[in-house]
């Protein structure tokens, strides 16, 4: 037996210290400590034994030591000292000294913290939800003096948000969108990681007084650094220069995303030159020069024309796979912009728009082909949209090509930025009412006009008029929904959350069923188109019947699935009714089996009931821990069931009314 152990010498007592102890150890003020914790990502931990008291915050000693050795700590102290000197100089009206000190104010960088907190890129992606949401929030906030929100922070937020969105559009990474009461939810698939962010509605925010903006700004400081590096990495992986140069004209026209997209769209050849120029421009420092330089590659590209396109196609594998869907469109928009200035908007259409028109024609042609091939599946083919020939299992491919060949025009009452992001990410082309739009409202290539007003005065017969929700619903379900339902002026069908797992939720709204059916049809059409492609690839010898048969198979399968679902639903409803009956029977004294012996015709307990009772009895002999778990699960499932039942009852009542 060793020496007697003393109390408080090992274990939780020394591994964890309270916040005040940490402050003393680090010799920091509380505000400084909090700031450092935010930047370093250090959070309190919950020790098993709270040796200093129950109502205290505990930090791990290693965390605090980690803070103590942070170089940033000394940097912040230096800053503090210089601030004090400046204040003193100002108070003594020593303006020279104050200015000199201010100019030499030490600056800190947070790069090392980003690397330290996220050792690998995937780690950073996993933690990207909060940064993106906060940055998108600050991009819409006013730079208010009262709350000390600096204008620079707002501008940086805006820039980073746009860069991120541009990347999403460029790679067609967007998967789901949802308009909630809170704002727009977007979910993108970044290197296999789902990244979700929330953008507030584009109305002015009221800044509440009970919020400590310093805390949020500290978070924002770190988020800026992090997002900047994430963006760099993403752009680097694409082989695009970072930071992108924003077209000042489009920026002024508040077409932020387009402004960045123009730079992103440039080919690889131009990119190299641009990088070189960027290096030179950096030496010269003047922003105007840099901007002029930035517009140079666009001109160069026009000159080089086809060459660049070829190079671009060779370098960018993804684009090759997706037949240059988004990139070409975006590129065309940039050239279109230039020509629009010179020529009259109505008469001369930029060559790029011809491309668009061609694409649209192709789309229509594909639909027509589908019509010829299989009469009953026209609905599916139409619903498949631009992604009719994409493998239905390839979600990324379907997303990138869903709106291919469709040209949208947004009314001025429509939330432009969100819709721009969605439509372009899903492969569509967009114009909008207002400055900087690549296409005019009268353009004949427009297939869909997105309006959000009670009545639409003048209508073009060649295009469909839809509410913005149509775009989002179509994108979420990867089909082109029935545009009639979304006509302006009429109440659109419910907007369903794409984040809900129907199996998990237990309740499926009616409209979700409709859309799922459409989805099945579109999937079948896609599969059929893929089959056709295969057939054409391997020659014409494959018999026509086979494809039609496969189509019929698909349709039959979809039908079968649907009927199976219906049956399941019916069965569940019956089971619920049975359960109610069984309860009533239980309440009566005589067991049903006993009653049957007396000759009364009564149904015996079903197998399910017997099983249920057996389970109930078996649960009685469970050990306590497992029984608690069992009971909680039962409770949860019961609550869920009750919720589903309530919804179904409500639906039935609404249906009657």
């Amino acid at each position, binding site marked *: 037996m060793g020496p007697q152990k003393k109390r408080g010498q090992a274990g939780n007592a020394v591994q964890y210290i309270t916040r005040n102890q940490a402050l003393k150890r680090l010799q920091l003020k509380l505000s400084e400590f909090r700031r450092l914790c935010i930047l370093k990502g250090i959070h309190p*931990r919950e020790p098993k034994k709270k040796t200093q008291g129950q109502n205290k915050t505990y930090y791990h000693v290693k965390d605090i030591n980690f803070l103590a050795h942070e170089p940033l700590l000394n940097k912040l102290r230096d800053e503090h000292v210089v601030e004090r000197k400046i204040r003193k100089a100002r108070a003594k009206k020593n303006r020279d000294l104050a200015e000199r000190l201010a100019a030499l104010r030490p600056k800190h960088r947070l790069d090392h913290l980003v690397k330290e907190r996220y050792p690998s890129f995937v780690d950073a992606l996993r933690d990207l939800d909060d940064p993106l949401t906060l940055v998108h929030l600050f991009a819409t906030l006013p730079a208010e003096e009262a709350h000390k929100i600096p204008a620079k922070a707002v501008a940086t937020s805006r820039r980073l948000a746009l860069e991120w969105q541009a990347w999403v559009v460029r790679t067609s990474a967007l998967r789901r969108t949802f308009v909630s009461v809170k704002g727009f939810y977007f979910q993108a698939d970044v290197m296999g990681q789902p990244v979700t962010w929330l953008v507030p509605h584009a109305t002015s925010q009221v800044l509440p007084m009970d919020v400590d903006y310093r805390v949020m700004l500290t978070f924002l400081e770190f988020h800026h650094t992090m997002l900047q590096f994430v963006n760099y990495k993403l752009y680097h992986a694409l082989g695009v220069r970072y930071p992108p140069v924003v077209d000042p004209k489009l920026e002024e026209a508040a077409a932020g995303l387009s402004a960045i997209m123009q730079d992103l769209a440039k080919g690889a050849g131009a990119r190299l030159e641009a990088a070189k120029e960027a290096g030179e421009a950096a030496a010269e420092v003047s922003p105007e020069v840099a901007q002029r330089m930035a517009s140079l590659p666009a001109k160069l590209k026009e000159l080089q024309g086809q060459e660049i396109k070829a190079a671009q196609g060779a370098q960018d594998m993804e684009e090759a796979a997706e037949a240059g869907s988004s990139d070409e469109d975006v590129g065309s928009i940039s050239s279109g912009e230039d020509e629009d200035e010179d020529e009259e908007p109505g008469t001369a259409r930029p060559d790029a728009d011809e491309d668009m028109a061609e694409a649209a024609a192709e789309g229509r042609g594909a639909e027509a082909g589908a019509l010829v091939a299989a009469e009953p599946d026209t609905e599916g083919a139409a619903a498949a949209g631009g992604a009719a020939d994409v493998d239905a299992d390839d979600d990324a491919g379907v997303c990138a090509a869903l709106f291919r060949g469709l040209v949208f025009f947004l009314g001025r009452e429509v939330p432009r930025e969100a819709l721009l992001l969605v439509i372009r990410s899903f492969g569509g082309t967009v114009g909008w009412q207002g400055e900087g739009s690549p296409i005019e409202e009268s353009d004949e290539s427009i297939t869909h006009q997105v309006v959000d007003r009670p009545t639409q005065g003048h209508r073009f017969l060649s295009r469909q008029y839809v509410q913005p929700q149509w775009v989002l619903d179509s994108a979420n379900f990867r089909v082109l929904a029935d545009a009639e339902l979304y006509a302006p002026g009429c109440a659109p069908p419910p907007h369903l*959350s794409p984040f809900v797992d129907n199996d998990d939720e237990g309740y499926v709204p009616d409209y979700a069923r409709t859309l799922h059916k459409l989805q099945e049809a579109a999937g079948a059409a896609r599969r059929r188109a893929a089959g056709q492609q295969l057939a054409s690839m391997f020659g014409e010898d494959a018999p026509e019947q086979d494809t039609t048969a496969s189509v019929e198979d698909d349709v039959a399968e979809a039908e079968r699935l649907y009927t199976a679902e219906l049956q399941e639903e019916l069965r569940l409803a019956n089971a619920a009714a049975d359960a109610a009956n069984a309860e009533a029977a239980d309440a009566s004294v005589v*067991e049903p089996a006993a009653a049957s012996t007396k000759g009364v015709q009564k149904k015996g307990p079903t197998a399910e009931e017997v099983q249920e009772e057996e389970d109930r009895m078996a649960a009685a*002999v469970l050990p306590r821990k497992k029984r608690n778990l069992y009971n909680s699960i039962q409770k949860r499932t019961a609550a869920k069931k009750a919720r589903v039942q309530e919804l179904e009852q409500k*639906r039935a009542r609404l249906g009657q009314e």
Partner: protein
Amino acid sequence: MKKRGLDSSDDEIDRAVLDLVQGGEGDGSEPAGQRPDRSDRTADAGTSQAAAADSDSSDDERPNRNTVGRVPLEWYRNEDHIGYDLDANKIMTKKKEDRLEALLARNDSGKALRTIYDEYNDEDIVLTRQELELVQRIREGKFPHVEVNPFEPEVDWFTRDKEIHSLSQAPEPKRRFMPSKWEEKKIVKLVRALRKGWIKTTAERMVSHEEPEAYLLWEDDGLISSKTSHGLSYLPATKTPLPGHAESYNPPKEYLPTEEEHKGWELADEEDRAGPLARAFPSLRQVPAYDRFINERFERCLDLYLCPRTRKKRIFVSDAKSLVPQLPKPRDLQPFPNSLAMRYLGHTAPVRSVAVDASGQWLVSGSDDGSVRLWEVATARCMRTWDLGARVHCVAWCPAAGLRIISAAVGKSVVLLPAGVGAKQEAASLQALQAPAKAAGGKGALCKWQPRADGEGLELMHQHPVKHVTWHARGEYFASVAPTGNTQAVLVHQLSKQTSQNPFRKNRGRVVRTAFHPSKPFFFVATQNHVRIYNLAKQALAKKLLAGSGVTCLAVHPSGDHVIIGGEDKRLAWFDLDLSTKPYRSLRYHSQALRGVAFHARHPLFASASDDGAVNVFHGMVYQDLLTNPLIVPVKILRGHEIVQHEGVLDCAFHPSQPWLFTAGADATLCLFTNQ
């Protein structure tokens, strides 16, 4: 000079004036015109003196004639002198003018209005014009002296202007005209440092600040570690839950709250609300800004850096049924009672106890209505009723083969009744229950054996209320329990000799139940928290079982190696006597206290009855092999009794040969459950 009835401030000013005129030592000075009354004057003399003492008048211009100092002047009122002069001669009081003379004098002299009387020195003072003016100025709030001008132009005595001529006549030193050697050295040093790049100019330093904004931070991917760089586990913050249909701006109609839900939400506390209610907007353009957006982001920020993080072990169980142990199916464990076959009606109050005789033909029950009833099992016919006049707490059959004797615990006595069924047994029973030759036991005896007052049978009079009777397997001995009996709580009676004995000198705790071991000389005594097993042969404690709290019932397995105990803690505890003093299994499935437990004599069955109105039947297989643990499988929950005043099923007993179960309920009925 002053009229009466002036306000106090004017009075004070007047007094000050007098002081001023007289000089600092104006003790007891009072203006004559102001105080024409002698009495008034004297009354106020003290206070005026105090005021005079407070005044800070400057040096005296008119020296006092009188030297009495600061004494009340009334001391001299009746004297012919007013005091003494500097030479210590009396100063005689002036002759008083009468009023007429005074008036005439005042009218005659032109200075009457300027004259004041000094009581201290006993003389009249005529104010000069300057003094009057002084008084007037003071009254007006001006400076007293005319010469003082408060707004005189400031004279700048110490001018800032630099003089051209130095004050000193010394010539300028040479160093003023020579460049400093030390400065030069310093400059040389600085220049060298600048040239060599040891120090940097401000501009250079500004340039060095500008580093690239962003660069490739993550070179290689795929390195995912669960540890942070300082060795603690990385606990990522939980993600915010994703929105459901209800959060949509245009949710399905069934997700919208009804009016009731809306009202309920509004009435609820802000903390209790589940979240914002679902709202629907007819179109996207009408959706307003979410007012709590910034607050929610802020709260999220706070959560990120203020909330302690722990890694909670979560068990993801997709199906609750997977937790349920894989037990044999009840249908494979038949026979067991599973349906209600018969009801025995007749009692009018809750039936406390039920017992079946060894042949399985007869059933006896004791009830709160004071009756013991004998039933034929097969027909549910009440064969006989004994009215014993008090609550019957327990009934039991004598298990002896040739006898049919019913024992019942009634009030303070145990009653032995001949059942009166079966001719052969009837005779033997009557024989056994012959009244003792001499009344056994005197006054100090434990209990008195005596014939029943009304009818055949015996009555064992105890000193305490008896609650329970239990028989030894051979039917020779039986034990009675009187929980309040303290040292006489447990008595063991011998039927053949008609004697009683108290086996325990002392009982630890309140004895609730007793039982005999079916084959060995062991005796189980259940107190509220323990079950003690005594070896009757050795007369020693063999084992003490920890039974939880509030034991209410006890049953011993036919093999004698296992005991089940039910308690008010809603638990049924199975003890394996070979293993431990703690339960082998403790089952909690009843929602109310247990009232009765029973083992089946032949089939591997046991049952528990509870106040929740249910009887749970278990398959309890005990293996001969000592290494295999008993198998306990719940097979059936039987419900046949109603709950009356929080009492459900009060007792249960198995049929000796058939897998049938009899239960006694608080609803005054008995039930028979059979295996169909």
